[in-house]
């Protein structure tokens, strides 16, 4: 009886390994995309990815499962489960008895595999974002394997990532909320079972020691590193627990079409789609867009010349991207153009007061916060290098009045403004977050098109 639980995207050697476990020259592969709302795009990508080596078919539960559900499972050599919302997937499976069918198939010798949700499900328990953008305990896995599973567990020296269904957002937290006491999430990492850490071949780097690069080039070069940063659960706590949950409170309900401006590798868009938004992402970095396309529709485009009609969207989201725009005024003007009148632009940015200063003593949370300059302050360049993930950030100090000026010129008056503050629960879990009760780390704006 064999199960292969994959932390994240499987490169070809791992694909071949899993297919080889079946012992069939051209195994019958049944793909189950329940966790991803049975979205046609990832299903088609499985046909493209594995169709040359396996007889691929897929199983849908909507509008209802096939009458020969059990027979189809038992006739397969390999059942491959896609990523997405683990808890929702299990609820649907159990409603139709597919959990029992899977056990029967497994005991009959069918190889079971999958990534992300398709890996968590085989265990008794796991860490999941099924219940919101935060990480939670799953609590009721199928239990074919003992213990719990954390998808995309990163080990130094290895390079997982490209989680099809994992967590979101670019340029986001970046400022790690240091965990001084091991929390529940960390304890749950004691996963057992057969876990295979896939290796991602990185795109070639073009870094040059003395070469000056624009912000745009910098993000394109760092796309793979950024994807590791953004998609490794727990790596970007400021995004997961402080920035994104508060930002979501500013968002209007899903409407006709949502533009994710500066979508990066897609971590925001994938969550918005789960919330019911129909997302189109744009980013100037071709590599970022390539990664985002694993999760939602995305195109390479310049924010100052969007390839969309006037009024094409009823929501523009700019999550931690405006401060990376080389021409902020033009980007905001263009965002306004593609918004229909009366609709919203929602933006999260690094708070300029935080960007302008620093703690005098980084070990003392009572330390004074020193601001050498604000209206004309230099960009801070710093590198996050933790757990084998290395990303360089350029923190520009963009005063509140500069954002306000760009919005004013674009005909986007500010309807709501928020300054991030950590919750009591966050400070309890991550004591160092207490620092951020004194100075805001993020600024959130919701503006309305006149």
């Amino acid at each position, binding site marked *: 009886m064999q199960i292969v639980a994959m932390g994240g995207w499987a490169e070809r050697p791992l694909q071949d390994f899993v297919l080889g476990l079946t012992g069939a020259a051209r195994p019958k592969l049944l793909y189950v995309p329940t966790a991803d709302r049975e979205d046609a795009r990832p299903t088609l990508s499985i046909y493209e990815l594995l169709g040359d080596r396996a007889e691929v078919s897929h199983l849908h539960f909507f509008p209802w499962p096939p009458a020969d559900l059990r027979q189809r499972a038992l006739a397969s050599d390999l059942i491959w489960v896609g990523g997405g919302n683990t808890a929702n997937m299990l609820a649907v499976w159990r409603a139709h008895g597919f959990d029992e069918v899977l056990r029967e198939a497994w005991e009959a010798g069918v190889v079971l595999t999958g990534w992300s949700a398709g890996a968590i499900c085989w265990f008794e328990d796991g860490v999941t974002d099924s219940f919101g953008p935060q990480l939670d305990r799953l609590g009721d896995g199928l239990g074919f394997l003992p213990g719990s599973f954390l998808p995309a567990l990163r080990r130094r020296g290895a390079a997982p990532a490209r989680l099809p269904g994992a967590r979101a957002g670019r340029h986001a937290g970046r400022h790690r909320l240091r965990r001084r006491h091991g929390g529940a999430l960390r304890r749950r990492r004691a996963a057992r079972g057969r876990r295979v850490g896939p290796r991602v071949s990185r795109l070639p780097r073009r870094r040059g020691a003395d070469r000056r690069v624009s912000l745009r080039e910098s993000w394109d070069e760092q796309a793979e590193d950024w994807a590791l940063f953004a998609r490794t659960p727990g790596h970007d706590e400021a995004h997961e627990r402080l920035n994104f949950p508060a930002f979501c409170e500013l968002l209007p309900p899903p409407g006709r079409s949502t533009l994710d401006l500066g979508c990066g590798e897609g971590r925001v868009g994938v969550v918005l789609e789960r919330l019911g938004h129909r997302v189109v992402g744009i980013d100037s970095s071709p590599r970022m867009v390539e990664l985002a396309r694993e999760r939602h529709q995305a195109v390479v485009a310049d924010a100052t010349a969007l390839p969309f009609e006037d009024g094409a969207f009823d929501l523009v989201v700019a999550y931690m991207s405006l401060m990376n725009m080389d021409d902020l005024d033009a980007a905001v003007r263009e965002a306004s153009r593609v918004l229909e009148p009366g609709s919203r632009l929602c933006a999260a940015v690094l708070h300029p007061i935080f960007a302008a200063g620093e703690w005098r003593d980084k070990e003392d949370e009572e330390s004074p916060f020193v601001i050498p300059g604000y*209206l004309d302050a230099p960009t801070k360049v710093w590198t996050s290098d933790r757990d084998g993930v290395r990303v360089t950030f350029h923190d520009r100090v963009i005063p509140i009045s500069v954002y306000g000026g760009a919005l004013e010129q674009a005909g986007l008056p500010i309807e709501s403004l928020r300054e991030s503050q950590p919750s009591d629960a966050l400070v309890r879990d991550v004591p160092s977050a207490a620092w951020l*009760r004194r100075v805001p780390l993020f600024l959130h704006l919701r503006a309305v098109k006149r």
Partner: protein
Amino acid sequence: MSGARHWEGQADSWAAWARAPGHDSYWTESGPTFFELLPPAGKRTLDLGCGEGRVARDLKKRAARVLEPGGRLCVCVTHPMRDAGRFAPGDPDAPFVIAGSYFGKQRFAMTVARGGHEVEFRGWSYPLEDYARALEDAGFLIEAVREPPDPDRPIPNFLQLRAVKG
């Protein structure tokens, strides 16, 4: 003592302070930039917290007369960041330091003596979000934000907002 009673007691000192030409930053920093923020004169204008009346006097010079429904609310406040910290004394190049917290409604009180005039300033400081929430709750949209630079220091002293009734 309430803010109202405090300023009532300071009225004469404040009038002398405010009416001495060139005496404070109103003449060079907060005043000129604030008037740039104002919309053209309408029907009637309310000066909310008019003090001894110097803003209203200058508005009259600009022929401002009235306010109408759907008009603008223009406010000039001490910059929330400026209220949260201070420059280390004694050194004109000293950096600005927030020793406590930027957040929360906080009382401030300080006595400033200059050119023979002395005034004790008292009031409340709020983070930017509090001003924005108050405007949002009252149905305003913020259409302009200004942070006029202080010619002598790298931190703006004032925050100016123009809001329109939505």
